[in-house]
């Protein structure tokens, strides 16, 4: 009797000890599920539909649970066929897509031409409120399903036709030779029937055709993804799963990494950049991403759009000491920009180092002279508008202003103009309510020069908030899009970029890097050109 009691006590003590280690972080570091890694995340802004996700955090999940026609090579950014066997065209307008055999969704449904066509029609339809609908705007019949105003007059786009289970054709409303390369973007992935049958259920636990499946999703706190054992693609996951944990503050995520509670942080806070080498040694990565920061101008304001304005803008550009700012404030996690694209495109893809030339080099005397020749700063002062809530923008705007003030020898030449929230900042800049330069950040959707130029500088383009317009630029972009030879198309885009330079349509500041830090359990951690970790390649243990 006494013996039995003693054993029970011992068992209890062991159970308590086990439970304690369970609380102490064992559940995610070396749990029973094996090689599962945990990674920092923030709550996605929109429902996790492919055509409705336009920010990195939601995109992170989509890139794990979906595969599209093309997949961007994590290292080079080159668009390679994934589900597509071939995409053929003779005129850069009519494309025939043939799918590979053997792909299924993780619920067993076969991926067919219809899976794509239905998903694209769903994404384009005005009725579905998809924020990425404009990605389908090159396809013929888009204006019928998504008119600028009024009700839609068609259910499906006339440019999409299913030929058989593995073939469909796409007709564009204009020539666009880069179109196949855009198809690696998340908006173009196929959707299973389950999505249309029970949208709410699907959103609670999305089903796709990628290397991971969603095991559980607690909105606002965490998502558990496990490796899909029967994944038919060539890039099967090399770990057993990923747990995405929502952090409100990236400093907490970093602290958790230091304490061994988290395996991967893909956003090292600016305050920690100084210590990160000492803290993590070679478990830290700082690599170029397809992000460029520029200063855009309000061309709807007469003061910024008169005879001498070009010289004023060039002068401002030369008054900014990019090297010093990127080194002292950003600890080299940003690189001074010398063109309007991004190094991740590579020389063949259209990146041309030094295209900006002397206009992007710091020279206080030249800056002073240029601004004087251009008739001085409008109103005697520039106000750089930015949103103060995220991204430590205040730091660099103040530094840029300091640099300008020093160069011009005038303490009041430049001041920052903070706006409380991103939403308010966007609503002011998209409704033409700004009277001075403003922060313009651009993260590429797909690695093409076109994506760095057309949305930002084409007349009335979706992100041309400053309303810059140049017939010469528009003509060159149209020609570049119609050009079938990729090398010639890139050259034409660079000519268009030279127009941007000669007018100094926007002042390029720096290229942004992606950064990541990880625990000792992980190896083979890389970031793709979209600054998202390549989860399927990470090895655990």
């Amino acid at each position, binding site marked *: 009797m006494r013996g039995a009691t003693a054993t029970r006590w011992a068992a209890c003590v062991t159970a308590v000890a086990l439970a304690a280690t369970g*609380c*102490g*972080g064992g559940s995610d570091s070396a749990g029973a599920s094996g090689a599962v890694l945990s990674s920092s995340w923030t*709550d*996605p*802004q*929109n*429902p996790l539909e492919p055509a409705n996700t*336009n*920010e990195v955090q939601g995109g992170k999940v989509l890139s794990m649970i979906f595969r599209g026609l093309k997949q961007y090579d994590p290292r080079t950014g080159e668009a390679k066929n994934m589900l597509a066997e071939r995409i053929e065209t003779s005129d850069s307008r009519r494309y025939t897509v043939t799918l590979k055999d053997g792909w299924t969704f993780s619920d067993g449904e076969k991926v067919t031409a219809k899976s794509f066509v239905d998903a694209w029609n769903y994404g384009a339809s*005005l009725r579905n*409120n*998809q*924020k990425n*609908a*404009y990605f389908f705007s090159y396809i013929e019949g888009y204006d019928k399903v*998504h*008119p*600028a*105003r009024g009700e839609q007059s068609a259910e499906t786009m006339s440019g999409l036709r299913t030929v058989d289970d593995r073939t469909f054709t796409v007709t564009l409303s204009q020539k666009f030779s880069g179109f196949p390369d855009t198809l690696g973007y998340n908006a173009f992935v196929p959707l299973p029937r389950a999505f249309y049958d029970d949208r709410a259920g699907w*959103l609670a636990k999305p089903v796709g055709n990628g290397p991971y499946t969603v095991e559980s999703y*607690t*909105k*606002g*706190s*965490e998502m558990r993804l496990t490796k899909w054992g029967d994944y038919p693609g060539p890039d099967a996951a090399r770990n057993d799963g990923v747990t995405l*944990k*929502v*952090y*409100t*503050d990236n400093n*907490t*995520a970093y*602290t*958790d990494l*230091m*304490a*061994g*509670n988290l395996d991967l942080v893909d956003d090292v806070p600016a305050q920690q950049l100084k210590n990160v080498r000492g803290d993590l040694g070679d478990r830290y990565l700082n690599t170029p991403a397809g992000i460029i920061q520029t200063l855009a101008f309000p061309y709807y304001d007469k003061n910024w759009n008169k005879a001498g304005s070009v010289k004023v803008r060039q002068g401002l550009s030369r008054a900014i000491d990019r090297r010093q700012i990127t080194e002292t404030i950003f600890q080299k996690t940003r690189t001074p920009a010398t063109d309007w694209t991004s190094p991740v495109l590579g020389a063949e893809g259209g990146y041309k180092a030094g295209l900006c030339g002397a206009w992007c080099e710091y020279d206080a005397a030249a800056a002073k002279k240029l601004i004087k020749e251009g008739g001085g700063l409008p109103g005697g002062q520039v106000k750089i508008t930015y949103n103060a*809530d*995220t991204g430590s923008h205040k730091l660099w705007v103040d530094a840029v202003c300091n640099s300008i003030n020093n160069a011009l020898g005038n303490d009041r030449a430049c001041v920052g103009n903070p706006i*409380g*929230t*991103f*939403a*308010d*900042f*966007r*609503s*002011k800049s*998209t*409704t033409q309510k700004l009277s001075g330069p403003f922060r*313009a*950040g*651009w*993260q590429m959707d797909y690695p093409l020069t076109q994506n760095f130029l057309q*949305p930002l500088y084409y007349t009335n383009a*979706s*992100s041309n*908030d400053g309303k810059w317009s140049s017939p010469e630029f528009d003509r060159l972009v149209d020609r570049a899009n119609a050009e079938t030879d990729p090398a010639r198309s890139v050259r034409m885009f660079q000519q268009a970029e030279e127009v941007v330079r000669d007018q100094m349509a926007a002042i390029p500041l720096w290229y942004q890097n992606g950064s990541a830090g990880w625990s000792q359990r992980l190896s083979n951690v890389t970031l793709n050109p979209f600054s998202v970790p390549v989860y399927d390649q990470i090895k655990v243990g």
Partner: protein
Amino acid sequence: MGRYVLRRLVQMVPVFAGATLLIFLMVNVMGDPVAGLCGDRQCDPATAARLRAEFGLDRPVWQQYLTYMGNVFTGDFGTAFNGQKVTELMATAFPVTLRLTIVAVLIEVVVGVTLGVVTGLRRGRPVDTGVLLLTLVVISVPTFVTGLLLQLLLGVEWGWIRPSVSSAAPFGELLLPGLVLASVSLAYVTRLTRTSIAENRRSDYVRTAVAKGLPRRRVVTRHLLRNSLIPVVTFIGADIGFLMGGAIVTERIFNIHGVGFQLYQGILRQNTQTVVGFVTVLVLVFLLCNLVVDLLYAVLDPRIRYA
């Protein structure tokens, strides 16, 4: 008593309406939330118009407010931009913050009142001076400093606890965040109790109790403490509402997904529905806490009567 409670409840109606209206207007003044939904790109006008219509943003503010209040009374707090019902967000956030508040209030009451009694009875002694100095330090150091410091020491350097709280947020993990959250109020509770005890110690009824030969323990707990607690109870009652809404800093540091987190995110994304919904519930909590405090007065001091 019953009529008093009823009167207080009726008084809450205008306070409630005014508070929600103010919050509603403030969030509205921040500008157009739809513009922030499309990243660094302009939402295409057709989609933006449909989104505005869906969230009712295309109507005048007064109409939006009336519709919103109408829905609130049927239990519908609207939908957040990420497609989740606000009631669903509340169901996940409030239990977490409630647990955090309970931990914080317990620490406040137990530690604060004990320290207050001890120092109040030993006025001028080294214990008293020491605790007074300590509370002074705690009051003057901001919460985020104590929070980050303790997190770094206990979580990273010594490895006693996890630096962040898991999504389930059980009581055990909330001990440290609760302590940090309670620290400033704890200091106030200590000082309030101390002053009150020290004052009442010389009052007639205490002298009578001592003269009757009651044991010291009984004199302190039944007579002295009970009469000295009125200001402390007032403070703690008001503090519960403050702790629930004001935990934004603590919740951020320890990554607790409670009310503070939802409010912060709601404000950043200018999500009227989330912000107004959460603040409305907080206003209710605040009003109810105050009512309970007023009723507790009568329990503590039988001389107080409500008619």
